[in-house]
């Protein structure tokens, strides 16, 4: 089902501050993160880009993210929603106080992304460039609940080809910085529209890089070539043609040389067919490249 990606789509903007980008892990090194991501919303952006109300819906994903350097230029990546909870509130009559539509909840494993990143430039390049192939494995449930409206996955196997470029620099003697950008083409199956994804990221390392502040812009533009309600009589087209431009801020703090904590918040500047509420994430990470 596609409608669940009204929120799952935002997950794309929550990869680690240290992960992603054009930088590959050195051979044998890795970066791992366990995080909780959630959004609770009672409004959504419609296909007109305007906001309509909906029954309060929440999604909570416990996600494991890991990078491992197979070689200095080849990194394997997994981003797995190891536990996903989707619920909707009861709908209660203000007149009679009776429950008109009982709320429901569904828990399961979510979707898993597996990616392979290859450094197109030599390690240590001033402006590294990398190519990534991402496979979106539909391990979540796309149609739980009595109306098929609770989902922990989008039910489609997608493949995305992405190009990343970036550079690191010193903002001052005490502040390390980096910026990166990417563009990708997401080929979706099962009647979903293909997507162009892009992003821009800027990070600052403070206190000898023990604290990192990161800002992101993430965009998704649908090619709008998938199914609509006119061609498919099911409840599965809600998030087809999802588009958004989101911004996110994240702070990551190293508690030890390798272990730290992170927190982030994200919202959208403009959107279609997506939750109209900020999403949050907190996590703990282990950076074995240190």
């Amino acid at each position: 089902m596609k409608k669940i990606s009204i929120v799952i789509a935002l997950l794309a903007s929550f990869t680690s501050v240290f992960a992603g980008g054009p930088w590959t892990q050195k051979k044998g090194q890795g970066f791992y993160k366990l995080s909780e991501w959630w959004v609770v919303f009672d409004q959504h952006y419609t296909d007109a880009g305007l906001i309509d109300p909906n029954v309060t819906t929440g999604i909570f994903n416990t996600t494991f993210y890991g990078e491992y350097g197979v070689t200095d230029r080849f990194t394997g990546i997994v981003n797995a929603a190891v536990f996903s909870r989707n619920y909707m509130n009861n709908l209660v009559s203000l007149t009679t106080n009776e429950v008109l539509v009982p709320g429901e909840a569904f828990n399961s494993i979510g979707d898993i992304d597996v990616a392979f990143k290859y450094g197109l430039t030599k390690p240590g390049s001033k402006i590294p460039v990398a190519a990534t192939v991402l496979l979106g494995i539909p391990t979540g449930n796309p149609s739980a609940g009595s109306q098929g409206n609770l989902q922990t996955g989008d039910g489609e196997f997608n493949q995305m080809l992405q190009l990343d470029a970036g550079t690191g620099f010193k903002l001052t003697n005490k502040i390390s910085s980096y910026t990166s950008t990417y563009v990708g083409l997401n080929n979706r199956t099962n009647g979903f529209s293909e997507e162009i994804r892009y992003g821009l990221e800027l990070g600052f390392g403070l206190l000898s890089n023990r604290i990192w502040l990161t800002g992101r812009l993430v965009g998704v533009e649908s090619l709008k070539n998938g199914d609509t309600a006119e061609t498919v009589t099911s409840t599965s087209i809600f998030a087809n043609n999802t588009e958004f431009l989101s911004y996110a801020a994240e702070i990551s703090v190293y508690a030890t040389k390798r272990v730290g904590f992170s927190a982030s918040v994200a919202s959208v500047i403009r959107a279609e067919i997506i939750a109209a509420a900020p999403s949050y994430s907190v996590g703990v990470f282990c950076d074995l490249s240190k």
Partner: protein
Amino acid sequence: MKIILPLFLASLFFAGCIKDDFVDDEVSPELRISTMLDTIAEDSNFVMEAMYLNNVGQEEEAQNLIWTSSDTSIMSINKLTGLLYGKQFGSSVISVSYTNDLGVFKDSLSVEVGLNTVLQESQLKSGTINTTSTYELFGDFDIEQTETGVVLKLAENYTASTALPGLYVYLSNNNSTIVGALEIGAVEVFSGAHEYVIPDVSVNDYTYVLYFCKPFNVKVGDGKIQ
């Protein structure tokens, strides 16, 4: 920290508990004569019926209805049973009233006395569906009584968004909820004229044509049947 983190994650899990969303579904209670009688034959009987719709638009059994005739020389009616008797040619207004905690409710119908008993044949009502959301939805409609039910006819100017999953059309007496509404079916036509044949329904049974996104309980639009 070993304690704080699991506790924090656990608190997030409990934040995902199902709570209540409230919908303002109050409507004005209504008493409605459901018998579509046009003419009663002289020297014959006919049972009049009425339906009471409560403050959420649900049909509720109404005991102790009071029936009256404006001209008892033309036709008489049993005050409690609604049994109508045509005495002589002419017309009279048949009224019914019902009293409960919410107030006194009334409805009336003009009936003729003639050679034969005749039901209202081609009763036609109409309206316009408008979006109540930001999803596209518009169209004029007619709803016509047939021998077996009604036909809901959407006009050529009808158009609906194809972006919604599970867009359904209903007949209802409450335009805030589909609880208690008659589900006609999933919308499969998104522009242009088309019609729905709905059996075992009277044109007087419902007040609204409703469009809802069924899986997400989101109201998309409605049109009052007039």
